[in-house]
C-alpha cells in the first residue's frame, strides 16, 4: 500500500485541507468497524502511540491509538491554523507539521514565492522530509492552494518546485482554486498568472477549481433544498455539503464550498485507499490523462452533487449519474466539456456499480462526446467498492479537455488589463529576486499553453485521416 502527503498552503489551502481531513476520518470511521489501523487508513494517516518514547508510528494491523494526518500545513499568517489548533481536528496534527508566520503575504505572489520561499526554504524541506520519512512507500503529494492570494499562489508554487527537487520520483497533484472575476483581491490576476507558469512547469497534474463554480453549485443545492423542485429533497447527512457527522461543530461560510473540493480529493484517492475490482492507482492518472507534458490540467466533475430523492428506478438513476458527470452544472470550473474537445477522460466510480454498468454508460455517452482524432477511445476507468458515506455510489470524472482554455484566456485578459497600465507592478518589483521578466515569461508561458489547446481544439469536427501505416516489403 502506498501513502500520500497533503501539503496545504495559505488560507484557502488550509481550509480545504481541514474539510478533507474531517471527511476522510469520517469515511474511514464508517468503513473501519474494528478499530484496527488498516492499510486504507495508513495511506493518509499515521497511527502514533504516545506511550512509546520515540513517538514512532504503529504498524498496520495494530489497534488505533492516535491518528495523525500525513500533512504539512503552511500559512504566512496565524488565523486559520490557530483556528484548526483550537478546533476538533487539533489532535490530528502536531506542531512539527505546522509552519506559520504572522505578517501574511499581502496578496503578493512575489512575497510568498521569493521572500518567504527563501526564508522558510530549509524549514519547509525539513517538514516535508519528516512527513516522507514516516511513509514506507510515498506515492504522491497533494498540494492545495489558491491562485489569487499571495501565500497560496506564491509560496504554494515554491513548495511545488521544492518537491520536484527533493522528491523527483513522487508525483505532484495540485488542487488549485482560481479566483472569481469579481474577486476582491485586485492583484489576483498577477498572482494567478505567475502561479500558472509554475504549475505548468512543475506539476504532474493540476485539478483546477473555480470559486465561481463552487458558489454556483452551492446556490443550486440550496435552491433545491428549499424545495423549488417538487419532490426533490437533499439527502440528509450527505457529505457533499453538510458537516453533520464530522468533527467540527458549527458550519462556517465557506464550508459548503470547501467540502466539494474535499470530496474531489476523497474520490480521487479512494481507489488508492480501498479495494475494488479495477484499481486505479494515483500513478495511473498522469500516464493516462497527460498526452503532452504541459497539458496536465484536468477538469473534474462530481456526481451525485445534488442528492435528489427522486422516484426513478435505481438503474435510471445510475445512468443519470453518468450523464450528469458530463453536464455543465457539475463541473468544478465554469466550462462545457461536451462542446469542447476531449484529449482523455477518466471515470472513477465508487460503490455498487458493476463493470457492465460502466461499459454500458461509456458506450451510451461516447457518441455525443468529441474526442481528439488520435484518442477516440481515450477512456480510463476505476472501480472502487467502497462508496462515500451516505451514498450507494458516486462518480468522479476527470477530463483533459480543451474547455479549460476559456478560463485561461479570461485570466490572461484580466492580467493584461492590469499589466498594460503597469498597475501595482512596483509592489512586486520591490521584492528581492523579482524582475519584470518574471511577468513577461509568465505571460508567455500562459500564451503558449492557450496556443497548444487552441491548436488541438482546431482539429475538432475536422476529418483527420489515419496516419499512413508502415509498409512491409513482401
Amino acid at each position, binding site marked *: *500500500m502506498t501513502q500520500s502527503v497533503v501539503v496545504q498552503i495559505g488560507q484557502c489551502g488550509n481550509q480545504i485541507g481541514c474539510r478533507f481531513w474531517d471527511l476522510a476520518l469520517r469515511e474511514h470511521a464508517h468503513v473501519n468497524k474494528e478499530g484496527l489501523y488498516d492499510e486504507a487508513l495508513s495511506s493518509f494517516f499515521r497511527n502514533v502511540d504516545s506511550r512509546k518514547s520515540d513517538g514512532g508510528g504503529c504498524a498496520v494491523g495494530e489497534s488505533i491509538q492516535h491518528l495523525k494526518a500525513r500533512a504539512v500545513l503552511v500559512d504566512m499568517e496565524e488565523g486559520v491554523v490557530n483556528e484548526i489548533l483550537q478546533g476538533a481536528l487539533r489532535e490530528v496534527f502536531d506542531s512539527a507539521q505546522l509552519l506559520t508566520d504572522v505578517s501574511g503575504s499581502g496578496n503578493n505572489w512575489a512575497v510568498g514565492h521569493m521572500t518567504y520561499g527563501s526564508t522558510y526554504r530549509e524549514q519547509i524541506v525539513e517538514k516535508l522530509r519528516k512527513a516522507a520519512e514516516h511513509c514506507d512507500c510515498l506515492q504522491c503529494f497533494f498540494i492545495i492552494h489558491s491562485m489569487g492570494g499571495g501565500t497560496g499562489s506564491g509560496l504554494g508554487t515554491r513548495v511545488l518546485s521544492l518537491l520536484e527537487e527533493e522528491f523527483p520520483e513522487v508525483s505532484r497533484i495540485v488542487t488549485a482554486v482560481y479566483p472569481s472575476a469579481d474577486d476582491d483581491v485586485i492583484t489576483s490576476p498577477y498572482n494567478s498568472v505567475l502561479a500558472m507558469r509554475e504549475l505548468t512547469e512543475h506539476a504532474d497534474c493540476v485539478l483546477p477549481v473555480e470559486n465561481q463554480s463552487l458558489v454556483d453549485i452551492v446556490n443550486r443545492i440550496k435552491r433545491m433544498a428549499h424545495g423549488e423542485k417538487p419532490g426533490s429533497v437533499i439527502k440528509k447527512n450527505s457529505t457533499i455539503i453538510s458537516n453533520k457527522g464530522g468533527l467540527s461543530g458549527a458550519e462556517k461560510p465557506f464550508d459548503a464550498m470547501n467540502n466539494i473540493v474535499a470530496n474531489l480529493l476523497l474520490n480521487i484517492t479512494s481507489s488508492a485507499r480501498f479495494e475494488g475490482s479495477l484499481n486505479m492507482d494515483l500513478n495511473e492518472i498522469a*500516464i493516462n490523462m497527460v498526452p*503532452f507534458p504541459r497539458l496536465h490540467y484536468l477538469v473534474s466533475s462530481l456526481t451525485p452533487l445534488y442528492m435528489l430523492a427522486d422516484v426513478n428506478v435505481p438503474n435510471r438513476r445510475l445512468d443519470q449519474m453518468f450523464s450528469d458527470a458530463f453536464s455543465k452544472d457539475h463541473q468544478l470550473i465554469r466550462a462545457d466539456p461536451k462542446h469542447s474537445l476531449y484529449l482523455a477522460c477518466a471515470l472513477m466510480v465508487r460503490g455498487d456499480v*458493476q*463493470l*457492465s454498468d460502466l461499459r454500458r454508460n461509456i458506450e451510451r455517452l461516447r457518441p455525443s462526446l468529441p474526442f481528439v482524432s488520435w484518442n477516440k477511445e481515450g*477512456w*480510463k*476507468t476505476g472501480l472502487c467498492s467502497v462508496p462515500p458515506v451516505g451514498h450507494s455510489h458516486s462518480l468522479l470524472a476527470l477530463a483533459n479537455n480543451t474547455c479549460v482554455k476559456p478560463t485561461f484566456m479570461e485570466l490572461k485578459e484580466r492580467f493584461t488589463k492590469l499589466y498594460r497600465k503597469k498597475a501595482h507592478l512596483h509592489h512586486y518589483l520591490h521584492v528581492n529576486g523579482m524582475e519584470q521578466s518574471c511577468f513577461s515569461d509568465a505571460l508567455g508561458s500562459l500564451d503558449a499553453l492557450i496556443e497548444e489547446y487552441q491548436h488541438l481544439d482546431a482539429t475538432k469536427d475536422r476529418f483527420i485521416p489515419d496516419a499512413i501505416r508502415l509498409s512491409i516489403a513482401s
Partner: protein
Amino acid sequence: MSIVTVQLGQCGNQVGHELFEAISRDALQDHRKLFSTASRERFFNQTARGDLVARAVLVDMEPKVIKQSISKANSSGRWRYGETSHFFQNQGSGNNWANGYCILGPRHRDVVEDLVRREVEQCDRLSGFVAVMSVAGGTGSGVGTYLTQCLRDAFPKSFILNHLTWPYGTGEVIVQNYNSVLTLAHLHQLSDAILVHENDTLHKICAQLLNNKHISFTDVNRVIAQQLASILQPALTPNSYGAYSRNPLGELVSSLACHSEYKLLSMSTIPQMPSSSIAYSTFSWPGLLKHLRQMLISNTKMEEGIDWQVRPSAASGRSRSLPGRTFNVSLANLLVLRGKEVYSAETGSFEDPTLYTSWLPPEDAFHLWKTEVPINKYEKSATLVSNSQALLRPLDNMVAKAWNMFASRAYIHQYVKFGISEENFLDSFTSLEQIISSYSQLGSSVEAPS
C-alpha cells in the same frame, strides 16, 4: 510432467486464480483416478499432509490482488498457493509498460527468478511455463514481458506459453494500445506460443451465452479459466499412446506453432451455457462439431450468431466467399474433445485441406486430443485452439490506433522518461506490421515466408 504458472499483474493474478479454481473443481472431485492423478501432477504439488499447493508464482507490483487471490484460495478448502511463492511491491507500474519493463522488472528479477526456480525444483519433470498476463496495464505487460525474457534465458529448454488478455476496445487504460504493441512485439521473439483472449468477446459470451446480468471481471475471468482448463487438463494425444499426455505444453506448441512467424493462438469452446440450462440440453458430437467448424471458418467466437454463409470453396481459389464475408484461413488447429462417447466423434471435417494454407498438409495442420472424462459439467464438450487469421483484425485495429497516437507523439514522453525511445516504438511497430502481413497472406501465399 508439470506446468508452472506465473501470474503477472492484476489481471494475471485474477485469471490465474480462476484457472486453479476451475481445475481443482473439475479434476480433483472426479473419481477417475488416472485422470485426476495426471491433473494433480500437472498443476499441484502435494504436501506430506496431503494439501494441494498450486504450482504457481504470483507476481504483482501492488499487494491487493495477490492477497485477495491467496485468501480466496485458502478458503476454497481444496487447494492453496505456496506460502512463500508470491512477490509484490507497494506501488503499481502505473499502466506504463516502460516502467515495468525497464525499471521494475530488472529491479526485482533476482527475487522472482528465485521463486520460479524453487517452484521448478518441486516438479519431478517440468513441461514448461504458462505466463498469465494482460497486455493493457503496466505490470502484466511490462514486467511480464521482462520476466518472460528472464525465463527464456534461465530455462532455455522449457516451453513458454504466454496467455494474454486483450483489453476492451475502450475504457480500461488509455495507453493500452501502446502497451499492447510493445508487449506483442517483444513476446513474439521470446514466447513459443501466444494464446489470446479478448475481453470484448468474453463479455459477449457472458452476456449472451451465460446470461450473466451484471457482468464483473470475475465472470469474464471464469470464461477464460474454463477455456484454458479444457485445453490444459490431461487428454490423450496421438503421441501419448493411450496414456495421458506427459508433455502438454510441448505437444500444444508443436501442433500449433510450427512456424516462427506465426505464434498467435485463439480459441473457442462449445457448449457454453448457464449451468441451470445444462440439464435441459442434449449434446451430440456431430452437432457440436458442425457448429465448432463453422465458428472456425467464419471466425465467430460464440455459438450464437454464426455466419453459415461462409464456406470453403472446393476449387483452388481458396478464400472465395460472398463479398464482405471472409473465410478464416488456418495454419494449424488443435481440437480437444472431452466427454461421453468421444471415440465415436467424427472429426474428418477439420482435416479438410481447404481450411488450411497450401504449404502445410492437413495431417500436419490438424491435431486431435481426447478423453472420456467430461469437463465443467458438460456431458460433451469441444474446444478448438487455432493458429489462424482470427486475430488479424483485432491486431490490425490495435496497431492502427497505436500508430495514430504515435503519429501525434502523444504520451511518448511518459515512456521516454523510463527509457523507451521513439526508435524502440518504431521497431515494435515494424515487427507487428510484419506479423500482420504474414497472417494476411496465409490465404494466398503458396509458400511459407522464409
